[in-house]
């Protein structure tokens, strides 16, 4: 019987929630990496036992962890516990080392971006926000980092190289940090075209590569952001999240700082589909696994009040690819609720009745085994949830 594994990153560790295909009874494993911030963990589509985790700390920096047994055990790639360095004195791996590429060979070494005070500021690595394993190779994984850049490992996370064409394509000096820092938080891979990669950056916007990450272009036409001097500028938009259905890779859905958007031409042009949402501010957006025009968001009251409107936790579903939205409330608190749902904290499984999952800053992870009609908490009292990913197991 098929099963589901929910990977939860929190402010104080990672948790793995497991169930069979009925999704009624859950086993909870964790905390893994107790006390550390786990910004994101995700499994390889090519090998479900291969998981990657971003373990980070304001004190100790960035750690990359890998599991080859579905989250039972973890190691820093290439550095088994207690093993010494090579005879030459070099570490066995540099899995924690993220160094911006400033080499002349890459053409446009770029060292500054716009800072809060309008001055140019050097890029400084802080943490990995998002790990996106390759669709076909378990050893290849992308990392979206703060300060915004895209890195790739081709050796299972042992070493990382920047895809510097993104920072170097020309608009980098105009990027600036949002309230959460200047982070590359979304990486979407096209399942039909291995050359095509989408990324999103706060606050710069969305970008696309059609040559496997070598060169990039901004794809922000149609976005309007009143919080930047030119609301329709080429870059500067605070994109919170992008989602795609694997059967329609040219259709993208976006939760922007304000506004829910869609594009039917791989980001060439966006149109607003916020429709009747009670607020079009939010962080998450995701697509039903089996219905490419069914999408989910969780409206948040505003950018100054990062909690749900009216004290009610409501997922909104559109079965028309946007504009017409219905509130999904069964099993969710409808009074005195003031949580947030962060950008990486919603995911879907691919079972016949699509499961939808999200985590809150209040430490709850909610699940629906019927595409959002009914909800129940898997866990209620975890640390604040930063990310939720789901694996559908054979």
């Amino acid at each position: 019987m098929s099963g589901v594994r929910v990977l939860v990153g929190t402010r104080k560790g990672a948790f793995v929630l497991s169930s069979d295909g009925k999704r009624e009874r859950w086993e909870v494993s964790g905390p893994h990496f107790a006390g550390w911030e786990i910004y994101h963990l995700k499994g390889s589509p090519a090998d479900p036992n291969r998981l990657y985790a971003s373990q980070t700390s304001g004190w100790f920096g960035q750690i990359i962890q890998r599991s080859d047994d579905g989250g039972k055990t973890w190691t820093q790639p290439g550095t088994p516990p207690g093993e010494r360095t090579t005879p030459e004195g070099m570490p066995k791996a540099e899995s924690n080392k993220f160094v911006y590429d400033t080499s002349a060979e890459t053409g446009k070494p770029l060292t500054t971006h716009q800072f809060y005070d309008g001055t140019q500021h050097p890029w400084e690595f802080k943490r990995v926000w998002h790990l996106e394993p390759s669709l076909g190779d378990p050893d290849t994984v992308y990392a979206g980092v703060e300060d915004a850049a895209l890195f790739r490992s081709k050796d299972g996370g042992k070493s990382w190289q920047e895809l510097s064409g993104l920072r170097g394509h020309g608009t980098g000096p105009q990027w600036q940090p949002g309230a959460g820092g200047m982070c590359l938080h979304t990486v979407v891979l096209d399942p039909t075209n291995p050359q095509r990669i989408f990324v999103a950056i706060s606050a710069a916007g969305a970008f696309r590569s059609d040559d496997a990450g070598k060169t990039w272009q901004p794809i922000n036409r149609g976005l309007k952001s009143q919080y930047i001097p030119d609301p329709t500028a080429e870059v500067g938009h605070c994109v919170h999240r992008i989602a795609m259905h694997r059967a329609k890779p040219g259709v993208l859905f976006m939760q922007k700082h304000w506004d829910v958007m869609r594009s039917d031409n791989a980001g060439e042009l966006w149109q607003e589909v916020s429709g009747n949402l009670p607020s079009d501010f939010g962080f998450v957006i995701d697509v039903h696994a089996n219905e490419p025009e069914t999408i989910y968001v969780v409206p948040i009251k505003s950018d100054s009040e990062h909690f749900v409107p009216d004290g009610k936790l409501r997922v909104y579903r559109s079965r028309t690819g946007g504009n017409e939205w219905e509130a999904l409330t069964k099993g969710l608190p409808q009074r005195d609720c003031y949580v947030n749902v962060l950008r990486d904290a919603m995911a879907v499984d691919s079972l016949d009745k699509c499961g939808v999952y999200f985590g809150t800053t209040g430490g709850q992870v909610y699940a629906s085994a019927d595409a959002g009609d009914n909800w129940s908490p898997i866990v209620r009292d975890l640390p604040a949830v930063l990310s939720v990913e789901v694996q559908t197991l054979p």
Partner: protein
Amino acid sequence: MIRVVLPPHLKGLAHVSGEVQVDVTGPATQRSVVDALEAKYPMLRGTIRDHVTQQRRPFLRFFACEEDLSHESPDAPLPDDVVSGKEPLLIVGAIAGG
């Protein structure tokens, strides 16, 4: 032989409990001790000092013999009692946050 006390999170990463001990060739300094720590426990590379600048991470402190050595030169000799193994070098996570 230099005794080093790591903060709990780094003990977890290095899979050790209690104090660790490292051998240093040449003068015992903050730099040579951290070099030896990273050689023995490569998973700690980048956690005590930045990968690129090699500077101490701002929220980590070096204490020994009831003194804060954090602002000493990384190449300054460590106190005699640390060099002799009588006292440990404490690597401490600054108290901040939740």
